[in-house]
């Protein structure tokens, strides 16, 4: 595909869902199962601004019509959990500028920063151990047989089941959350990295041996630089997975971070803020990935398609 149309289609892939959302929000006859009361008329329990089911509204209107009293008035509306795009756009700004309701609560940017730190430490600690183990298991049969069977078993255990245990051991603050992200990432990471290592062209190792490389040099000068671009791509994908564990992790112990913000806002029925926060997660994830992809072109100049998958 030519570069120009590729760009256009990329834009389109974001525009289509937004268009669908706009249609549902702004075209009254498409969905709108509720009525927002603008004038309660003679109905005693209707209040201005109240959202009622269309059926109920129609029933009350008929009832008032029959008794000849003032009719209620209202306009079709969507349920409160589906705010219109423009409301979410506004919330994007106001969510950052609105002061928390209680002094102990955090601003949105503070919550976000907390989440990013949890992700970073979870992923960093997992990679610190997981990548070397994966490379060892991928290079040496001995380590592969030593590590992989147990890891294969462990990776089927969903990380959240360790929530209660993590809290019991590590307390209620950041530590158990980092532990959940670690558990969620680590076991997959070892297996993926070991597979990537095994995919290295064996003839490169043979060539290095005929050039006099010993075992240590094979590992440090051939295996590691040889898998680096693929390893980098693996880590990019795994980082995406780490985000999915974040939400679970943050519900464990003392709820915190972006998840705390979302649940809190849902409790206040500020669904525009909820949507804004969800999208912020998406935007942070996508931006990080784009930055990492662009970086890989610079770090690995020998790769023809450094951007990769």
């Amino acid at each position, binding site marked *: 595909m030519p570069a120009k149309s590729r760009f256009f289609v990329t834009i389109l892939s974001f525009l289509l869902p937004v268009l669908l959302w706009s249609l549902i929000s702004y075209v009254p006859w498409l969905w709108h199962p509720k009525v927002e009361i603008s004038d309660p008329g003679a109905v005693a329990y209707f209040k201005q601004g109240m959202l009622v089911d269309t059926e109920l509204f129609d029933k009350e209107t008929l009832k008032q019509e029959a008794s000849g009293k003032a009719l209620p008035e209202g306009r079709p509306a969507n349920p409160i959990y589906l705010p219109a795009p423009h409301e979410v756009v506004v919330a994007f700004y106001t969510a950052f500028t609105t002061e928390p309701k209680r002094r102990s609560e955090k601003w949105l940017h503070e919550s976000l920063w907390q989440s990013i730190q949890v992700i970073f430490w979870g992923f960093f600690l997992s990679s610190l151990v997981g990548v070397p183990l994966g490379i060892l298991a991928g290079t040496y049969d001995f380590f592969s047989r030593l590590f992989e069977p147990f890891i294969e078993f462990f990776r089927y255990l969903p990380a959240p089941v360790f929530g209660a245990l993590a809290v019991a051991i590590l307390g209620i603050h950041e530590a158990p959350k980092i532990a959940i992200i670690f558990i969620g990432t680590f076991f997959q990471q070892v297996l993926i990295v070991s597979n990537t290592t095994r995919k290295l062209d064996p003839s490169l190792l043979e060539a290095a041996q005929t*050039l006099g490389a010993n075992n240590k040099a094979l590992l440090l000068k051939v295996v590691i630089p040889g898998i680096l671009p693929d390893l980098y791509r693996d880590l990019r994908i795994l980082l995406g997975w780490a985000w999915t564990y974040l939400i679970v992790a943050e519900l464990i112990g003392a709820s915190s971070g972006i998840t705390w913000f979302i649940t809190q806002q849902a409790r206040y029925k500020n669904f525009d803020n909820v949507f804004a926060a969800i999208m912020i997660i998406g935007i942070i994830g996508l931006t990080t990935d784009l930055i990492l992809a662009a970086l890989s072109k610079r770090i690995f100049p*020998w*790769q*023809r398609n450094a951007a990769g998958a």
Partner: protein
Amino acid sequence: MTHILELPTYLDQDDAVKDRFARLKQRPIALEVKNLSKTFETTGGTVTALKDINFKTHKREFVCVIGPSGCGKSTLIRILAGLESPTSGEVLLDGKAVHGPGPDRGMVFQGYTLFPWLTVKRNVMFGLLQSGHSREHAEEDARQWIDLVGLTKFVDSYPHQLSGGMKQRVAIARALANQPGILLMDEPFGALDAQTRIKMQTYLMDIWKNIDITILFITHDLDEAIYLADRILVLKAHPGEVQELIEVPVPQPRSPEQLLSPEFLATKKRLEELIHPPQEGDEINGDHMNMVRMVPVDHEVESVF
């Protein structure tokens, strides 16, 4: 009528060639293979890849190994390089038995096997650094070898920026940089197009003439073998055994015009006989195509003849 050329026998050598072989055999022995055998255990039983291989190469000799597919020529060169171990027998380099891979035997693979993350210069430096040379010395040496294969302009390029022929020249420079006693080449030009291959053969001959190196070269291309080799080791398949060690009667130094000389053609005829013997069994073994005429009788081109 088809004319079949009357060729001399490949055993006829003119005086210059005869004299050269006599002197060649006086040279010290570079590589000696003694009673080498290799068997593989497979699910279908034991397969004998190589059986009782014996031969010697002399210093600065160019030996080609040729044989039908499945004759174990790749296994042979991999054993010589130390990448596989023989079931029995031994390999002596300068009289000393070798075990495992080492920088005393350079290897050039068909698949280039350059390190894609290293520049041309760093690729050539790899072996030098492994054998403990300082970075400065390795770099200086590498530049000389790269210059020798004519790639000075590409010292800082990455392998993916080079053509197949250029990659293989880097691989040759990388193997030579270690100054090995023997250069093992496993169908190094097999993946190149015909024109590049001829150019590479000429380069290789130039390198061989000017550098103290013994070359053992595997190929399945008969012309390549005759054009390059002093002697050709012909293997036969199932099991891989030495069929003949042919002294190529084509005078040295070689040039492309010799490809049509009587000695060249005579040698080629002999190789054809050895490698593709007339096989009467093919039809019976079912190794034929079930060809039926699929052209209509009234087609505008009724027959291709």
